[in-house]
């Protein structure tokens, strides 16, 4: 396996690194003592202490009962409003139309029309005779 090529540090990167090292700063003894003292005064916060506050069991019972009561109230109100609405019973379509027997003969189906036609022809004949009588023919 060929050796991994190491990218040479460019001029800017080298200068930035050198210049960072030119910043002379150190932690003074006084700061060191201060830090040590404040670290001793602090204790790490445990994971469990940062979890949400556990509520008492009564809280859950109270919220459950409240929820159930609210649900019952909603159901009661909805049903009460439904009773007040005008009742419109649907009429079956079959009852509105006379039943037609599809397996009867064609003559039976046309019989009422034939009767109506006969009645009309009779009326027409009577009207014709009346007109002739009136004009004296």
């Amino acid at each position: 396996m060929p050796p991994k090529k190491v990218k040479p540090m460019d001029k800017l990167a080298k200068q930035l690194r050198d210049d960072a090292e030119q910043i002379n700063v150190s932690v003074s003894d006084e700061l060191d003592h201060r830090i040590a003292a404040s670290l001793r005064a602090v204790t790490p916060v445990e994971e469990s202490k940062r979890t949400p506050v556990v509520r008492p069991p009564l809280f859950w019972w109270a919220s459950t009962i409240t929820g159930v009561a609210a649900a019952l109230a909603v159901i009661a109100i909805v049903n009460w409003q439904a009773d007040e609405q005008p009742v419109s019973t649907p009429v079956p379509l079959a009852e509105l139309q006379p039943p037609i027997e599809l397996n009867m003969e064609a003559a039976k189906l046309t019989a009422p029309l034939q009767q109506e036609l006969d009645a009309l022809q009779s009326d027409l004949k009577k009207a014709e005779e009346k007109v002739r009588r009136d004009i004296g023919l």
Partner: protein
Amino acid sequence: MASELQLIEAAKAGSADAFADLVRSYRERLLRFLLTRCSSLADAEDVLQDTLISAYRYIHSYDPRWRFSTWLYRIAIRNAGKLRAPDLVDVDSVSGLHDEENDPLLQCIADSERENLWIAARRLLNDDVFAAMWLRYAEDMSVNDISTALDRSVSWTKVNLMRGRRALDDELNDAAEESEAYG
């Protein structure tokens, strides 16, 4: 000598001494970085102290997938921001923060023929870009670690590192041209 992970475990168990050992090698590096972001050495020291206390207090929240230094820098950057925010009208502007006489960074830089590039960086770049450049070139952090420390995306980090480099390259070239002009 205990490893970093062992010291972290001991610190989690409540050992302040283990934590002090753990952060000993980071303190000066953090202080140097904080000096670039604070208006005085005293402020930088206060932020360092707060950072270490916060880190110890919340050591249980440290995720071992991160480098410990990344986590420390993240806390330090946040604490430095808290200290500075109320005093500044424009938080991103660093240049107005330091006057030359009292600038703690200038006081801690050895006399040199040329301007320290970090002074130029602080003048040319905004806070976050400066921090990204510092973490990359002074701390040798990876782009991923820098984006974690700054709470920025990887692409933001890459783009701003490139911009920061370009700005400093231009500054370097201008300085070189000036010194040539003056012979």
